[in-house]
């Protein structure tokens, strides 16, 4: 199947650029690798028939979030990435935690393949995530309250950002 080739291609792209986010010294290069990784995830969403989520991924993450990151990097980070080299203890400890978490997650995934997963039904017919009507029906019936809460959360986040980035001259004595 040709979509298998695409899956491995995009999975390699996503994982490779995720590694580049972690290992590049330059912060701007990290942000651009994050962009490539997110576009790869959007491509994976297309393979999973979630076309709306793929488009939203590109708009919200690749468009807004990475642009915001690059803006902040430009604003703050005049020195480039990490100024000092990593300590050996940091490297050893994070590699140890990496291996432990990786083993745990992989054991979950591989154990699932040994037992019978009820969800491995052959996917046929119209893909369920492809229709906008399905999203609308879910969002405005079952998930109506979460939609309103999320809208309120966005309002609170906007207010929070305004308060955080405002300078209060009268509050200098508080510190």
């Amino acid at each position, binding site marked *: *199947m040709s*979509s*298998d080739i695409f*899956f491995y291609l995009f*999975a390699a792209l996503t*994982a490779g650029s*995720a590694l580049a*986010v*972690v290992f590049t010294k330059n*912060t701007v290069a*990290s*942000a651009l690798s*994050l962009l490539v*990784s*997110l576009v790869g*995830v959007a491509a*994976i*969403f297309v393979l*999973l028939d*979630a076309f*709306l*989520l793929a488009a*939203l991924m590109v708009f919200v*993450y690749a468009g*807004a*979030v990475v642009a915001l*990151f690059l803006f*902040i*990097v430009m*604003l*703050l*980070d005049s020195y480039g990435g*990490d100024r*000092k080299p990593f300590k050996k203890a940091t490297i050893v*400890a*994070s*590699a140890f*935690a*990496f291996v432990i978490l*990786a083993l745990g*997650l*992989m054991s979950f*995934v*591989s154990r*699932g393949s040994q037992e019978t997963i009820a969800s*491995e*039904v052959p*996917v046929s017919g119209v893909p*369920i*995530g492809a229709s906008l009507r399905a*999203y609308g029906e*879910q*969002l405005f019936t*079952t998930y109506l309250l979460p939609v309103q809460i999320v809208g309120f*959360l966005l309002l609170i*986040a906007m207010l*929070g*950002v305004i308060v*955080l*980035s405002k300078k209060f001259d009268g509050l200098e004595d508080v510190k």
Partner: protein
Amino acid sequence: MTVGLNEYLFLSALLFVIGFFGVLLRKNTLVIYMCLELMLVASTVALVAFSHFNRTMDGNVFVFFILTVAAAEVAVGLAIIVALFRRRQTIQVEELNALKN
């Protein structure tokens, strides 16, 4: 061999672990934050894969909410980082040790 749920979950776990490694390893707050975003995205891959292979809508709708919350979270987090930089003139975590000792 066809690509099934396991391959997608494997990819999700891999992305999550890479993000976790980056959070532990890097010392620049912005890069740590990018790796956090990577972990969040990894969880959305798992949700969409479950939703696709179970033929339900719920995982996709959850990813919808996760995208919204992530956007709000990035805005607030970066504002906090900017406020921190204004106050301390650094965003390297080893220099942010006011609570040490």
